[in-house]
């Protein structure tokens, strides 16, 4: 008896949690309303089934609990009832799956006009790369990575020369412009995760992964790593600043590109090379 009441109460507690708990999805700041819709449809169907099944169970326990003289009904099976339940379950499944798959179709279809931005992960920081005026990201490889070339760009690739590099800084994006995020890792698995954007994807060393989205709200959002990447996993943070096109452009103009980085490295190496014979000559 107590168990039936407990189950009915737990159903009420669960409903109350859904309605009044302060924890629900963070306000969305991207185009992925279709994901939220699919989630809500799933929530409604599952919620109704949860309530119905458990309240039925609570009622059954109260109604058919043992009392002296009771006997159970003898009915090995009921093919008609089982068939009906199967059909209803199938219907509910289709009702959930269809919007889920439609949203997924949108998710895997990157719009042609999407601009490309690369996010690079390493233990435990984020860096970003924009393609520069030519609109093409130059080739890159982990085996090219040196202290002078932290992004592992191919120095012989002309497309790489104008790439704009943001090493362990914030990512800036223009609002309302679809963006394809190209993801690359130098060491282990990471996951580019901004709760407000809904979309996320793993970074996998050895291959390039991607997802797309369109930021719809301006503001600063935190970037987290969502795939366990070692002891600093929980501190692997960055920010993404979504701003209007004008302030985005002026921010981008202030960043240095690969050529400038190479030139700076060359100058530093030259100074080192020059410094050497002078110190010997002093002896």
């Amino acid at each position, binding site marked *: 008896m107590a168990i039936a009441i407990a189950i009915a109460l737990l159903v009420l507690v669960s409903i109350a949690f859904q309605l009044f708990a302060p924890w629900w*999805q963070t306000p969305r700041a991207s185009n992925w309303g279709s994901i939220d819709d699919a989630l809500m449809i799933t929530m409604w169907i599952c919620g109704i089934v949860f309530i119905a099944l458990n309240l039925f169970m609570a009622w059954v326990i109260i109604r058919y609990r043992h009392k002296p003289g009771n006997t159970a009904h003898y009915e090995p099976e009921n093919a008609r009832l*089982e068939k009906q339940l199967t059909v209803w379950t199938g219907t509910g499944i289709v009702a959930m799956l269809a919007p889920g798959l439609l949203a997924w179709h949108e998710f895997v279809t990157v719009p042609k006009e999407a601009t490309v931005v690369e996010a690079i992960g390493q233990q435990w920081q984020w860096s970003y790369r924009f393609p520069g005026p030519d609109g093409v990201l130059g080739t890159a490889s982990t085996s090219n990575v040196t202290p002078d070339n932290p992004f592992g760009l191919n120095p012989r690739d002309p497309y790489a020369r104008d790439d704009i590099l943001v090493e362990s800084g914030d990512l800036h994006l223009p609002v309302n412009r679809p963006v394809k995020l190209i993801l690359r890792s130098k060491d282990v698995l990471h996951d580019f995760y901004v709760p407000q954007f*809904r979309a996320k994807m793993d970074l996998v060393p050895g291959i390039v992964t991607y997802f797309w989205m369109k930021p719809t709200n301006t503001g600063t959002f935190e970037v987290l790593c969502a795939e366990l990447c070692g002891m600093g996993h929980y501190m692997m943070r960055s920010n993404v600043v979504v701003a209007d096109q004008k302030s985005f452009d002026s921010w981008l103009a202030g960043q240095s590109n690969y050529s400038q980085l190479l030139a700076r490295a060359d100058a530093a190496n030259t100074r080192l090379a020059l410094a050497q014979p002078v110190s010997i000559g002093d002896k």
Partner: protein
Amino acid sequence: MATVTIADDLIPLHHPHTFIGKYVWSQDHKVIAIQYSLTAIAIGLVALVLSVLMRLQLGFPDTFHFITPNNYLQFVTMHGMIMVVYLLTALLLGGFGNYLIPLMVGARDMVFPFVNMLSYWVYLLAVIVLVTGFFVPGGPAGAGWTLYPPQAILEGTPGHHWGIITMLTSLVLFIIGFTMGGLNYVVTVLQARTRGMTLMRMPCSVWGIFVASIMALLAFPALFVASIMMLLDRIAGTSFFMPSIVSMGQQLGYHGGSPILFQHLFWFFGHPEVYIVALPAFGIVSDLISVHARKNIFGYRMMVWAIVIIGALSFFVWAHHMYVSGMNPYFGFFFATSTLIIAVPTAIKVYNWLLTLYRGDIHLRVPMLFAIGFLFTFIHGGLTGLFLGNVSVDVPLSDTMFVVGHFHMVMGVSPILVIFGAIYHWYPKITGRMWNETLGKIHFWVTFLGVYAIYLPMHYLGFLGVPRRYYALGDTAFIPQSAHSANEAITIAALIVFVGQGVFFCNMIWSLFKGPKADPNPWGAASLEWQTPDTPPAHGNWGPKLPTVYRWAYDYSVPGAARDFIPQNEPPDRTARHHPT
């Protein structure tokens, strides 16, 4: 060599006479079952303590300075792996499988008693190797229970040096040991059933364990090869899972391997593993509900086919763990569809459990309370699985606390509730004594209400976006103070549930010595294990003559019968109707 006859009564049994022969190097399936169970529960207690340490860190960060980020990840890893493999798999198949299969199908023992014994000792060795991880330099593996490379074997991850080697070695040993046991379970069910025990007269418990054993024999090899390959990557410098990597500013010598290959291998094992744990629990809970509601399991044939179909389908859904892993995103369409299809036979099982209760004569004894608790948590955990299976809905929820809440409800709490129910249910047969009812009820209420208090809020933290496997949340703009308070409350609930388990152990140990003598069939159950001539059953189980089976295991409340159950080995008479099986 001891000779034990399995399926006939011609060759006399050879009974060991020394203590060591009876209880240590025993070939009796019942002793091996108890060895398996006690070892699994002992290592499970280690995992339970680890979970409490994790909860302390999550609920009260900056309070327990001995828990470092490294320790925390090691706790996460060891807790997960122990609970899934070394506790649940070992207890349900090695423990319950060993005890119940021969007794329920009317055999004298497993068909290969020596191999069965060996299975336990290799399992014990695997557990010992696993535990050595705590004592090697650098501590145990800390890569998460999924052990994803490259990080599992790279600097920056705790235990990458020795811990991962002991972990992988232990898994290899476990799989070798399990294969010996698993072959036994399958062959015994197929070959050693007594006269009249057709497959469609077997109790659901045997069906669940049988199908789970077949699945395990097919799924564990994927983990076996993955473990060996990663060991080679770690020790011999191969590059199965390792591409070119710059780790901590150093170019490593690896080249051309695929981290995602490991994920496919791992989940090809890992998803069936969920059902390897779930199917025995499904089977056992069917029997608990049927016996204590005095009613046949509703739709027995459908229940059996659902177990078989779930077992088969579960080999086609593994990549739903990998929707955002960077695999080809088009796989999502297939795996979302196959995953949601598997919900249909699973839902049928839930309906049939409820319909078994419907119009029953429900005795709310402790095993039944745990069975009802299971129904509640399994409905909850099964439904939240639909969120994660439904590919696009998974994208915001993956790697958040929602996942933690979901899989703990569905494959942590639910099977554990069944295991508790099963222990209370079969304890009188196993020990010959009865436990204390009041302590049993206290244990149930603390556990059942406590786990819901732990895991319900986790789902909502997940909706909010709180990531999992975080040592500390720190100041994160989107996480309000109330979420931190929720974490504190969850930790307090976890501590209460932890302490509550003490009631169970006190009850079991006290009853073993002081409990009242149990009736040989205290619940009035129809299945064969309750009809043994001795309680606890002696070596060889059935005395001089094997039982003959005349009916299915669910003749409860048959109209016209003298009692509200008819044992499977009772010959038919004219008064009672019979189920067509």
